[in-house]
């Protein structure tokens, strides 16, 4: 039981993620989590504004069911399969984050300084909105996210996905190394 309650090592987690991709392909679908954002836009009536959203969303309901499952999975994992172990971060990461004003790095999944609704201020609200906008716009522009490009695309040896993943890292490196220290 301890093996389940403790955080799982990378060499177990990676292959398990590949199983998610394999199962979806087995059932004739594709692993790509960002598609549901497009589907939700369509259901919300975005087809009135762009033909990009004009498609039969009922064909994508399975995708929304995966999303619903993911929410439930997150609930089950934290409530029944965890022992509140602190994320085993690099000590240097922890001290860097402390200098930026993040207390208790790794004690929770996300820093309360940005994500807690109790301490939500204008700055954290703007960060959440800007972050979400970049993720939503960027994934659609690039035609996929981590699951669609980094996992499915690279596993099937597709060059467009390699370019997209290089892009992911350009953006991520700029944010983590140049912009975050300016923001915090």
């Amino acid at each position: 039981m301890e093996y389940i309650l403790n955080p799982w090592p990378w060499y177990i987690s990676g292959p398990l993620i590949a199983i998610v991709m394999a199962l979806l392909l087995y059932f004739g679908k594709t692993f790509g989590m960002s598609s549901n954002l497009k589907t939700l836009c369509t259901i919300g009536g975005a087809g009135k504004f762009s033909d990009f959203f004009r498609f039969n969303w009922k064909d994508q309901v399975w995708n929304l069911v995966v999303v619903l499952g993911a929410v439930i999975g997150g609930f089950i994992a934290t409530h029944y399969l965890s022992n509140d172990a602190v994320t085993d971060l690099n000590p240097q990461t922890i001290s860097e984050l402390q200098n930026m004003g993040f207390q208790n790095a790794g004690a929770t999944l996300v820093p309360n300084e940005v994500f807690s609704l109790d301490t939500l201020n204008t700055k954290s609200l703007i960060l959440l909105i800007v972050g979400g906008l970049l993720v939503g716009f960027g994934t659609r522009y690039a035609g996929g996210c981590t699951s669609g490009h980094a996992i499915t695309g690279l596993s099937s040896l597709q060059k467009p996905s390699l370019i997209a993943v290089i892009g992911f890292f350009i953006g991520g490196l700029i944010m983590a190394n140049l912009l975050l220290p300016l923001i915090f």
Partner: protein
Amino acid sequence: MKFLKFLLIGIFFGIVLVKSEAVSWYRIYEMFRFQSFHMYGIIGTAIASGILFLQISKKGYIKSIKGASIFVPKKDNGFIRYIIGGTIFGLGWALVGVCPGPMYILLGTGVYSMLIVIAAALLGTFIYGVLKDKLPH
């Protein structure tokens, strides 16, 4: 019942991403600061296992449930959309620490501010859809 299997796959995915700590904002920060192997290990072994699965299925040893070949849709050719779109996504990924899967999973773990991120991501997707024809691809 048709959707039960997708619900179970989603639940499994959510559990794996929490237990692997891939939904942790801190793990994403650590990855982009090159201070830990953890995320590289996860993504690397996922891709290696994925390549193995797809190569075996390509040889015809694994078929889909309907007996057809395992099929991965081909991405459109292009460069600009992938590099620019990818960079824009990467900026957001490192800022809020989530990609489109984990934002839902974290909602399940009780991080309710993810609703703000999800709403903004929907708006971002909508903006792309409206501007699509004016953007270089």
